[in-house]
């Protein structure tokens, strides 16, 4: 019986071979050509500046109400990756630029065992640039920033959750499957929106960087980032910010500036506190790309010029946001960034040198930044899926203290990620909130010193 089966198998193999021979004739049958894509504009800075200290990886977390099932998550991931073929890429270096090359690698779900935001891109290594892990009730998506930004990753994450939840709670979805609310064709997902919206052909302008106050501190020995996440009620914070006659983002930004100020040595107060705030450009320019499409604005506050009460900081921050968040200003930023890519001289420099130049440029621009605050905003999910989800969270590998925040339902999660051991800024920030009567629940990752 067994040998009969084997015979059958061999027969089929021979038939297959004969068939390919007939079809191909003397011309070799060609394999599927390898596809490759250029890095989008914002991504170009990431590969040269990635290292153990600053991995350029960010994480989205979704805490479910039940413990995660590994097998179902794996099958959900396999379905999801089919819709985002772009994320199957590996990053490689050419003579002049880096590029993404499609690979046959398949993502594997593992239980979380590494430090948060561990390195994903290693030069000369061919591995996927994202990772899906789980821990108890949490599903984590870690993504290398060159591949996509927060919004892009969120589209992927939502699709993953959609497949996972509809599979895990099959019995609840017998009648009708909910709608997936990410609507983009393959080519729309692949779109390099920077290129599409690039308008001017001006040369690289000289950008003057004002030196900002820089937070210093002792790093942990294995470069781990310290993540402290605070869960609060959206309603409470909204009520609080309305009391100061402002929005949630402005209020928390001002609070962050104030928290930093309280730790500033007096002699450093002549430097302004500058927060870099990434902005999702999809809200300003039509695009549904699953790749990078973000810009960065800078919110500056100079202490010692009059009263430094919270009300005053809020006023300054508010006007800075209003001034920076206009289509013209963002377009200007975007064109400045794109000018690099369109600059003929820059393009023909070999990658080895380009790496060095970009590293220096990055180092210079870092001088002008004190800390970073990224607000992913309200995460919305099809309402049929919402009951299974407890909360969302996001944070970023941190070269300097960073706040990542997002909300889901009534849960606002503010995550502090910091490369430093000290937690004074975090303490100031959360204490100011709790003093205002906000109830906060904290979780954190680093139990060792």
């Amino acid at each position, binding site marked *: 019986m067994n040998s009969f089966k084997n015979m059958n198998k061999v027969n089929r193999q021979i038939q297959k071979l004969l068939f390919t021979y007939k079809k191909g004739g003397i011309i*070799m049958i*060609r394999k599927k*050509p*390898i596809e*490759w894509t*250029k890095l989008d504009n914002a991504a170009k800075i990431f590969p040269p500046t990635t290292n*153990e200290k600053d991995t350029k990886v960010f994480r989205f977390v979704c*805490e479910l109400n039940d413990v995660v099932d590994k097998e179902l998550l794996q099958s959900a991931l396999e379905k999801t990756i089919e819709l985002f073929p772009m994320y199957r890429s590996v990053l490689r270096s*050419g*003579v*002049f*630029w880096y*590029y993404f*090359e499609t690979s046959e690698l398949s993502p594997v779900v593992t*239980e*979380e*065992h*590494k*430090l*948060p935001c561990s390195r994903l891109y*290693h*030069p*000369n*290594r*061919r591995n996927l640039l994202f990772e899906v892990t789980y*821990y*108890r009730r*949490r599903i984590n998506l870690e993504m290398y920033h060159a591949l996509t930004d927060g919004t892009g990753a969120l589209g992927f994450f939502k699709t993953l959750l959609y497949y996972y939840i509809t599979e895990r709670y099959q019995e609840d979805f017998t009648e009708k499957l909910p709608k997936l609310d990410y609507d983009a064709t393959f080519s729309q997902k692949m779109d390099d929106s920077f290129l599409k919206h690039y308008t001017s052909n001006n040369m690289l302008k000289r950008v003057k960087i004002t030196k900002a106050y820089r937070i210093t501190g002792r790093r*942990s*020995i*294995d470069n*781990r980032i310290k*993540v*402290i*996440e*605070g869960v609060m009620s959206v309603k409470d914070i909204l009520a609080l910010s309305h009391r100061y006659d402002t929005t949630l983002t402005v209020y928390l930004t001002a609070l962050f500036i104030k928290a930093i100020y309280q730790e500033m040595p007096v002699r450093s107060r002549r430097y302004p506190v500058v927060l870099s705030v990434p902005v999702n450009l999809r809200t300003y320019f039509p695009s549904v790309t699953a790749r990078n499409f973000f810009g960065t604005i800078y919110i500056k506050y100079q202490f010692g010029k009059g009263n430094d009460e919270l009300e005053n900081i809020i006023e300054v921050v508010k006007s800075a946001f209003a001034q920076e968040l206009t289509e013209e200003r963002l377009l200007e930023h975007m064109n400045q960034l794109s000018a690099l890519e369109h600059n003929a001289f820059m*393009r*023909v420099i070999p990658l080895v040198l380009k790496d060095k130049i970009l590293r220096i440029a990055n180092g210079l621009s870092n001088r002008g930044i004190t800390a970073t605050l990224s607000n992913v905003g309200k995460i919305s999910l099809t309402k049929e899926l919402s009951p299974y989800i407890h909360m969302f969270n996001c944070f970023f590998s941190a070269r300097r203290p960073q706040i990542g925040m997002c909300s889901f339902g009534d849960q606002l999660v503010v995550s502090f990620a910091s490369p430093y051991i000290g*937690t004074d800024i*975090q*303490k100031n920030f*959360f*204490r100011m909130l*709790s*003093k205002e009567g906000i*109830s*906060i*629940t*904290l*979780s*954190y*990752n680093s*139990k*060792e010193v």
Partner: protein
Amino acid sequence: MRGREESLVQYCENCNVTVKGSNLVCPLCGGILQGQGNQEEEAFPHVPTIYQEFHIFIRILIMISFSMVVISFAINAILTKESRWSFFVAAGILCMWISLIFIIRKRNNIPKTIVWQVVLISILSVLWDYSIGWRGWSIDYVIPTICVVAMIVMAIAAKILKIGVRNLIIYLLVDGIFGFVPIIFLLFGWLSVGYPSVICVTVSAINLLALIIFEGENMKSELDKRMHI
């Protein structure tokens, strides 16, 4: 579910915050927490600190190299004052390290490592030949041999390690083109022994021809990809 969660959280009275999981102290102020805590509510797994350090093998190698250099200088100084042979020991060890550093840095890409070694060994051998009175052995033997050996090693390594043709093409191409360098030596008549160079050029020509005929399209797309400006 809710009830259990609430009874097992910890609270910091200084910061007025609730802390999830089981903790010794408050993450913000380091103060003592009230309450029991619940291991089940931990949001992150515990990852022990890993101390990154050089591999012990590398340490031993560094130790041996330095001792050898120092000892050879000492022996040179005591016994054979008239010759300077210890410099060659030092230079040899230096060359070994240069080569080793490149291997370690590029270790994740084997064909790339091989091509780098070809270039490196060629340059170092010419330098050696030059510094100990030019006899021409570097261009007579070393360069042609290493080019051919690299091609063979790449072909075998690709088979054993299952490296796809596409990942190999560019390196075979570079090595193939490099293999034509001995033509210059032949034309200018710099060589005292010609046959290794002739073999090298022949093998390179066959290699390039095979690449173009069998992998021409792949080679073109591979070049497009790597050379895009």
